[in-house]
Each structure stands twice: as C-alpha cells, then as structure tokens.
C-alpha cells in the first residue's frame, strides 16, 4: 500500500524554525561512552560488571536505567550511559581480556523525533527503517550522507544518531535540512 502524506504549506519566513516542523532535531546531553571489544568468552564477565546482558544478536541493544549496550559487531559494542556514570570504574574491575576505550568526547548524540523521523533519517541513510526491519530498540552502524553514524531507534518516531565530533556539524545540518523536506 502506498502511504500518502499531506504536504503542509509553510510560510517562507517560518521554514526551518523550531515548532513548525513535525520532526525535531535536537542535541542529546553529554554522555559517558565506551567502545568495548571482547571475544565471546568474555561476555558473561563483562555483562556482570555492566549490570546488563550484552546483546549478542546483530542489530540489537540492551538497556538498564540510563545504561545501554548497542551491538555493533560480533566482538564490538557501544556502551552509552549518563554523564555521571561509573561505567569506566565498573569495567576497570573486569579481569577477563577485553578492550574498553573511553570515547565519551569522541561522539556527539543527536536526537531525531516526531512523526516522520524515519523519513528524515532516510534522507541520507539507505537502510530499511520500517518497523519490521528496524524495530524499536534496534541499533546499527551505518551511513548518513557522506559520514558514518551509529543509528539507534528509541521508539517508533524517535532515533538517536551518534557521530564523531568532527562530523557533528555536518550531521546536525544534514538532519535539519532533511527535517524541512519531511514536514508532514
């Protein structure tokens, strides 16, 4: 079935202003982030230290409170927690072989939310973002325009885009531009 969205006519002076568009593109707050690499046999010990079960299925995530683990690859996770998190200290106690790199300041989080958020992301990301292919809670490393991002679906109409800080101006501008195109 073809989905038809009604195009809303905007006054030229209103275009791009907050509150006019159906999708908002905002900055996520500061966060603690870890790039975690480990082999399969280290997963139970790391899960115990993190207080959540590290996801081992492609494109899945696990969350407990503010702390979330995103499956990036068969031996790679992105852990995101609030800015005051004890994440680094928690992983420091783990004795099994693993690599945990603090990338809190390497990444910038951008929140894309509102009706049509998937279409805004799809303005520069070629992944299938239908709920069947990319359900709520799914996350994946992918591309947005000419940069690499990590995309995480928080709800049907809410995504978190994580990109490297030097790409953040591009990502933020790109998503705002895309949101103007997808005014539903």
């Amino acid at each position, binding site marked *: 079935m073809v989905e038809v969205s009604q195009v809303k006519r905007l006054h030229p002076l209103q275009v791009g202003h907050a509150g006019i568009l159906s999708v908002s593109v905002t900055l996520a707050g500061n966060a603690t982030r870890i790039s975690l690499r480990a082999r399969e046999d280290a997963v139970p010990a790391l899960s115990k230290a993190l207080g959540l079960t590290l996801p081992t299925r492609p*494109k899945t995530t696990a969350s407990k409170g503010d702390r979330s683990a995103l499956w*990036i*690859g068969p031996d*790679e996770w992105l852990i995101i927690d609030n800015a005051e998190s004890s994440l680094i200290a928690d992983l420091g106690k783990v004795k099994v072989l693993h690599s945990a790199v603090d990338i809190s300041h390497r990444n910038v989080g951008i929140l894309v939310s509102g009706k049509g958020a998937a279409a805004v992301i799809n303005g520069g990301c*070629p992944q299938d973002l239908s709920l069947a292919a990319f359900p709520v809670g799914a996350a994946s490393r*992918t*591309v947005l325009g000419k940069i690499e991002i990590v995309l995480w679906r928080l709800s049907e109409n809410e995504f978190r885009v994580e990109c490297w800080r030097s790409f953040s101006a591009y990502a933020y501008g790109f998503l705002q531009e895309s949101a103007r195109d997808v005014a539903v």
Partner: protein
Amino acid sequence: MLLIKCPYCEEERPELEFRNAGEAHLVRNSSIIEQSDEDFASYLYFRQNPKGLQFERWRHIHGCGRFFNAVRDSVSDKFLTVYKAGEPKPDVDALLSANALQESAPIKKRAPRTKKAEL
C-alpha cells in the same frame, strides 16, 4: 542500489556500507625467503580478474566492520553466496544448480582463468 548480505549481520544491507577488498583465498607462503621472485610477485600483484564468477573479499566497513568472502558474477554483479572469513570455498556447482531450480534465468558459470599470470 545493490543489496549485499553480510554473513555476520545476517541480513542484506545497502552497498554503501561495504567496501570491496579484492580477490579472496590468497595464501601467503609461510616461507617467502625460499620463494622465487616470480612466485611472490604472482601472489602479491597478479589477480585472476575473471569475466564471470569470482571469489572476493568484502568488508562491512560501515556496519559490523567484519571482512567476509563472497562469490559474485563480475558481469551481472549478482552475488551467488557470502560466507564468513576463514570458512572454506563453497561448492559453486552445487550452489548454481540450487540457484537454477529457484530461478528461471540462472547465472552462467564461466571458468576462471587458472593459468598463472605471465610475467
């Protein structure tokens, strides 16, 4: 856009997430010091580049980051199969006949050039 299945992500993803990484199953001699210059040059520089089915390496660089292998038709771009790095070469004839049962227009197998590159 070409959709490529990643054996680690277990699903088809857009080609923009991938990078081709050349011919697959090239094995470096364990003792290159005893190898002739011609043999080493053949390993290092010369590739089959067949018109038809070829074994090649791919990397899901903007996805899971893994290298994997694929059998792809260099004429039609159609992927016959993908498999994880380190796994043996799949039986191409078996895959082709299975493919022929499924599709009305199967991929024609063209024999890859087996002769070593002339120097």
